């Protein structure tokens, strides 16, 4: 069996890639995918810990995270399509109607 810490390290790898991609990528769909990657990293920790504690609520939590992610994907992609229709671009740098 693989020790639990390996799973946590893998989850940390995925999470860091997600965070970095969120901040540097310029395409909205890629940014969106990086969010999905972060959520997946979290799911991995939940499953790992559920295994360690021999407790089922971690798995249940993963199930709910997946449902929320699916709902979020539907709404998010609808928003992306709405923005694309208005601007014909997916580059975050060009979506700057409102200055910070």
């Amino acid at each position, binding site marked *: 069996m693989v020790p639990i810490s390996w799973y946590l390290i893998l989850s940390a790898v995925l999470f860091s890639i997600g965070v970095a991609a969120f901040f540097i990528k310029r395409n909205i769909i890629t940014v969106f995918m990086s969010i999905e990657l972060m959520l997946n990293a979290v799911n991995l920790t939940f499953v790992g810990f559920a295994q360690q504690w021999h407790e089922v609520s971690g798995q249940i939590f993963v199930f709910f995270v997946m449902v*929320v992610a699916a709902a979020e994907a539907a709404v998010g992609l609808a928003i992306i399509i709405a923005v694309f229709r*208005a601007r014909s671009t997916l580059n975050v740098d060009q979506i700057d109607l409102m200055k910070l």
Partner: protein
Amino acid sequence: MNPMPVSVSYSELLRLTWPEIAVTLAGILILALDLTVLRRASLAARLRSGVAIACAGCIAALFLLGYSDAFASLPGSMLVITPLTHVVQMALLALAIFTLLLSFSIRFTSHIGEYFALILFATVAMMFLVATQNLLLIFVALEFLSLSLYILTGFDKHSRQSAEAALKYFLFGGMSAGFLLFGMSLLYGLSGSIELPKIAAALSGPAPGPGYDPLLWVAIVMVAIGFGFKIAAAPFHLWAPDAYQGAPTVSAGFLASSSKVASFFIFAQVVAVALAPVAGSGAARAYTPGWVPTLILIAALSMVVGNLAALAQTSLRRLLAYSAIGHAGYMLLGIIAHSPRGLSALLYYVITYALAVVGAFGVLGALESEGIDRIADLAGLSKRAPGLALCLLIFLLSLAGIPPLSGFFAKFYIFSAALESEPHLGLLWLILLAVAMSAVSLYYYLRVLKAAYVAPAPLDQPKLRIAPATRLTLWILAALVVLVGCAPSLLLNSLGIR
């Protein structure tokens, strides 16, 4: 190892969630009516029926709340109902009613039924959010609320700003959910439970417990970042000005008031219940690590960034957005105090703040239908619409914290609660910073009022026409702000401060 499935009695569940069910049913009823009977009716008729049904649902929920048990809970801390959660739920319902009344004049969409249904669903999400102590339900309800708010933000299909605001809100919201979840998963890993009280018990366990585990600090930081985004505290505030500016006015008011009340309450619950054993201290000479120092950092940053950035704004909405960041800093003081008194002060602050902000956005909505958005455009408002100008005066002065209004007492209670929390005035520097920043905020609020009252009116500007329903709602809100300010005990008694 596995505990037997703890059964939740369905009848008990039904009994405890009647208020939420009433609001949900109202939402579904609006949808159904709007799509069938009223399909060919005029926009005004659909608006009227929508507001009427939605308000009826909220009022029914208020009554049901009044008649339900003061203390109740479901197994697994799924629902934990106390008098305090009742008060917060009632405040949320009242805010929803005011938001609905102010939306009589919306013109940006023809999907009336969906709009009202989403506002009601978001309210249901918040009611569940404040009444639970289970990480799973907290997460689900929080994301439910956020999803509804993204949609409400992007509802104006004619405005490109609205879509962009929704996009920014969505991307940052999604990332904050990732951080929050990572923190939650670590808490689960450290304690083996997703119930707040059990997490606290596990964290305070006998040494060598996980009390000083590095993973715990990571969890605390992650949870703070996640909630920091939700409450728009600096440095996680980047989405807020855009979302406030781009969203339809009604949505922006809802976003700035109700969701703030619910998020702050649940943030306080999570850190004060689950993380109570690892609070730490941020006092000047008694520093110990924990979540309190983390929050002190965020609070100080929010106050400075929010208030200083608000000085430079020319758009009223962005000014309100940045001042909201500053207010989030003050409100964090209530959590930092980490005492029942601090929690009560926080709730008093956030509820009175929400009343004033809903009112301010209501005034903005009335102004924007006349094409006024910049502060300079306000010139001569006191002549063109004296009633509206007076309402704006009351709301902004309450936000600034001028004595007879509720904002002053809110600031007073929250500062004193934070000051008492540490012996030897350990947090004095933070309070002094907060007071100084309040003075800064007074300046930019007065700048708006100067434009409205003192600046010479441009010639031949007609009087503003304001819908009677909007005017009535604004007067009620203004009266409430003054009333709660003059007699703070009305609200304070139910929040538990004597």
